[in-house]
């Protein structure tokens, strides 16, 4: 199929949203967006629309798209999607090549992406383009429900600037959407610092986003500075959910070996799906 790759900046957010939703209509984990949410996504995750692409066929129809997040020496490929009727015709590969070229043109050698686990066609495409698997992450959900467990420890609730300072000290690798740069772009970041009676301590950075009726919690990053991560994690989460008893919670990209996973599960978090993080390190 003959296609033309056009910078995404030439389209409105509404057009990009409609195309993106059409590419995901039969997706294994349907997650449509509206223009407002896509706008937030572009802002929060440093998507460069001048280096993102839309694939247009000779008949003038848009057939697919792919976006590129850019931060100094790193790039993130995201929102890759092709219309169901156009798949297996090389459009996805062409879009991906375009993103790689655009990243290389900026001198970026570390290019990363995430693919939903068991999306075999996409995973194989990325392997073909020399991406290597670097980690597996869980996307988890928790419905609001009351907790009867007693609170422990000394809790300190930090504002956005303080939360970002805490996150800066995180020693663990964070995926693109949860890392410091993404959180810096967000206005709704908060943090809980907790010290337990035995001296155990940790913190929990999260986003508290206002929606129509109530806020939701998301982008949780949990870290135990001292003590048992299971105990510290459980108390951090318990404090969070007692403070916000009616908030729906969405925890994205929790590493499958995160020591706080038992605490998350104990507090009612359940797995929605898994993502595989992949990196491509170029030597050119």
């Amino acid at each position, binding site marked *: 199929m003959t296609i033309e790759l056009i910078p995404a900046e030439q389209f409105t957010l509404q057009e990009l*949203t409609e195309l993106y*939703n059409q590419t995901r*209509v*039969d*997706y*294994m*984990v*349907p*997650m*449509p*967006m*509206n223009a*407002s*949410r896509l706008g937030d996504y572009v802002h929060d995750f440093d998507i460069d629309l001048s280096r993102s692409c839309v694939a247009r066929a000779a008949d003038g129809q848009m057939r697919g798209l792919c976006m590129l997040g850019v931060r100094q020496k790193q790039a993130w490929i995201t929102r890759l999607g092709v219309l169901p009727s156009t798949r297996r015709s090389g459009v996805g590969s062409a879009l991906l090549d375009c993103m790689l070229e655009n990243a290389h043109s900026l001198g970026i050698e570390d290019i990363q992406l995430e693919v939903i686990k068991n999306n075999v066609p996409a995973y194989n495409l990325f392997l073909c383009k020399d991406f290597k698997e670097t980690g597996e992450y869980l996307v988890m*959900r*928790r*419905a*609001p*429900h009351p907790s009867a467990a007693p609170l422990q420890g000394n809790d300190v609730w930090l504002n956005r600037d303080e939360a970002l300072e805490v996150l800066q000290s995180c020693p663990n690798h964070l995926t693109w959407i949860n890392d410091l740069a993404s959180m810096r772009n967000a206005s709704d970041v908060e943090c809980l610092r907790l010290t337990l009676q035995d001296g155990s301590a940790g913190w929990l950075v999260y986003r508290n986003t206002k*929606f*129509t*009726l*109530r806020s*939701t919690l998301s982008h949780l990053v949990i870290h135990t500075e001292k003590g048992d991560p299971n105990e510290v994690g459980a108390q951090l989460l318990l404090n969070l959910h007692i403070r916000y008893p*009616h908030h*729906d919670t969405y925890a994205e990209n929790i590493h499958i070996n995160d020591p706080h996973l038992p605490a998350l599960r104990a507090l*009612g978090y*359940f*797995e*929605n*799906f898994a993502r595989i993080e992949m990196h491509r390190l170029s030597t050119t």
Partner: protein
Amino acid sequence: MARILYIEDIQDNITLVEKIVTSRGHEFISANNAELGLELAFDLHPDLILLDLGLPDADGQTLSVWLRSEPAFEAVPIIVLTAWPEEVVRHTVEAYGLDGYLCKPFSLTALVQIIDSALAKKTS
């Protein structure tokens, strides 16, 4: 006759479900996003809500939390119709206190049965 609200962003799905619902003599209303769904729920007080999880503004889980937090909707059955994997949907329905689910693609018979069952439970 019951009033049934279907919150779903894909028009083909809305059209299909509308045919089934109206053929059973029910009144059918639809919303293609969470915010409109919430607005219609408040304005029209449906007897049953059919809910997709993948919505373009707030997702179905979050919308169900909003609905369930309002006294007016505490007793209104919410049935999930979704393409998400069945195990995840089952967990979701349990965790969010919803009333049932059908995974797409579902049979028309299954849809009729789950609607009839939910309405019967509400009446009893």
